[in-house]
């Protein structure tokens, strides 16, 4: 699977959260495309964007949440790139079946995005226009990865985010425990052990083996339970 991460941020070098996520981008299978860097004059090469979209299976929009939406340049990108004849309409449909997801950062606490909260509306409500784009273009809308108040996160929360981000870019569209196990075993097996002590590499390999054994145990227990009912 090839993933295209389309980032819109007017000042990406100064953004701690964006720099953190850029460092987490896996080496293989992911193309990062920062719009403001690619088009400093604001003139979008639509043909090039169409090629990028067509050669990837999962499209991610990554941005800071500005006034309940993306920065203006990402809206401009949508207006100019997702045109009739390419993204929709009788001669369009070139994005059908691809996956589409959002990764965005918010400065407000998660609890405020609900009825009774200061922001009143849920993230699902506020991101309706993006969901409608996915619907109209025939793409599969993924659960968003929302990063609340990055500046207040502790080290362990950042570690969780690091992994969740990589999974959002490279794991299949399945957040079950079994899918996360498969992804983790794969990561451990392809770990570059050169910058890891042999003992540490051995422990991680052993952990991966145990995850696979545990999965067999869980599946067998499930079969027995299914037979009992």
């Amino acid at each position, binding site marked *: 699977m090839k993933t295209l991460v389309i980032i819109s941020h007017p000042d990406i070098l100064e953004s701690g959260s964006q720099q953190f996520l850029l460092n987490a981008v896996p080496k293989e299978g992911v193309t990062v495309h920062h719009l403001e860097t690619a088009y400093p004059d604001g003139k979008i090469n639509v043909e090039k964007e169409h090629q990028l979209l067509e050669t990837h299976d999962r499209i991610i929009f990554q941005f800071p949440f500005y006034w309940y939406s993306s920065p203006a340049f990402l809206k401009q990108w949508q207006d100019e790139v997702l045109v009739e004849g390419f993204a929709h309409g009788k001669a369009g449909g070139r994005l059908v079946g691809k996956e589409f997801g959002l990764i965005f950062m918010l400065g407000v606490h998660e609890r405020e995005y609900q009825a009774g909260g200061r922001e009143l509306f849920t993230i699902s409500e506020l991101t309706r226009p993006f969901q409608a784009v996915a619907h109209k273009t025939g793409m599969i809308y993924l659960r968003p990865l929302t990063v609340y108040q990055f500046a207040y996160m502790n*080290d*362990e929360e*950042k*570690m*969780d985010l*690091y*992994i969740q981000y990589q999974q959002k870019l490279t794991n299949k569209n399945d957040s079950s*425990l079994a899918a*996360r*196990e498969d992804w*983790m075993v794969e*990561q*451990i097996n392809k*770990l570059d052990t050169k*910058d*890891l002590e042999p003992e*540490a590499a051995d*422990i*991680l390999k*052993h*952990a*991966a083996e*145990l*995850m696979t*054994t*545990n*999965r067999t*145990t*869980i599946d067998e*227990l*499930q079969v*027995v*339970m299914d037979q*009992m009912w």
Partner: protein
Amino acid sequence: MEKNEWILGELDRLFIEQKDFRHLALIKAARDIIKEQDKRIWQMEGELDGTLWSPKRWDE
């Protein structure tokens, strides 16, 4: 499960010794998954045990 307890201890030790953030994130995630698996196995075995010993099944 004893094997899970042992590896969780080893991963905890590794987590304290490591300095590289990428490795720390991976070790923590591996530890979290094994903890979740261990809990799930424990719950399923408990449920199975409870079902086998249920009075509803004594007539069978």
